């Protein structure tokens, strides 16, 4: 399942900026300084569209997905 997106591949490691939207979302919505901790008076409340969190919740649905996923694979030794 190689990504068709042009990515510089060097040896055994893929290198890229955090340009995939998923990588970006993970960074700038969850991490970084929160401005409210520094500023109160002159903050502007802008509405931020909620982006669906990609959190895997342990649930029946998740388990069923695992059960489905493991169907496609055959047993192999540790090395392959």
């Amino acid at each position, binding site marked *: 399942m190689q990504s068709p997106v042009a990515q510089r591949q060097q040896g055994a490691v893929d290198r890229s900026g955090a340009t995939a939207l998923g990588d970006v979302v993970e960074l700038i919505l969850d991490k970084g300084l929160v401005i409210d901790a520094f500023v109160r008076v002159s903050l502007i409340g802008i509405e931020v569209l909620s982006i669906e969190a990609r959190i895997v919740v342990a649930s029946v649905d998740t388990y069923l997905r695992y*059960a489905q*996923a493991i169907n496609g694979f055959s047993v192999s030794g540790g090395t392959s």
Partner: protein
Amino acid sequence: MTAQYVYGVTFAATVIPENLTGIDGAAVTLVTHGRCGAVVSDLNAGRPLGTRYDLLAHENVLASLARGDTPVLPFRFGAAMSGAGEVAGELLSDNKERLLADLEQLAGRIELVVKGRYDNGSAYREVLAEEPEILEIRERIQGLPEDSTYNERVHLGELVAIAMAAKQAADGERLVAALSPYAERLATRATAREDEAANVAFLVERDRRAEFEKAVEALGEQWAGRVRLRLLGPMPPYDFVSSGSGQEAA
């Protein structure tokens, strides 16, 4: 008075790259006070933010600075203030000790993120080989109608989930053990996908970046065919900005 979108805080002496644009293509500028500078652009606060273009613009501004040698404290998406005077006063002047202390502490350091993904189902194959019960249940319900095997399938999936979580934890520890000698701090992030082997952020001194990357290459070769590694960055120290966040890299 024009509203300002705030990307982050850096030293006042920072030179913003020419033609760097942010949200809605607005020019990125620096509002300074004393030794601190806020990286901002004009904002027309008339619409909700959060389209993919907004998110990518925010990240691109900060990544551009990190790729140059600029230390920058990244703000979380969606920070906006009423005007440039307020940015200089309430943000920079009122918080200057704390901002400067954080900047000094992070100067000369970059964040590099290493993500690993199980290659071509390798983790599932290992789980099948290592957990006879999983293989047994799978064989037993194969070919039976889904309705009659609902409970077995939930149980099977639970066992797989547990085995995968143990595998992810072990591989995360191996990755941290291999790379932490070359880093100053690290922050383990939750793995968000089933096929994700590890997701760890490292704070690395610029001078040691080459060493660190060599260690990532070595691990990638060791795991070839099993776990595919991705190296992201350098990026601003998103995972290390709130003081004391992350843990010491041994």
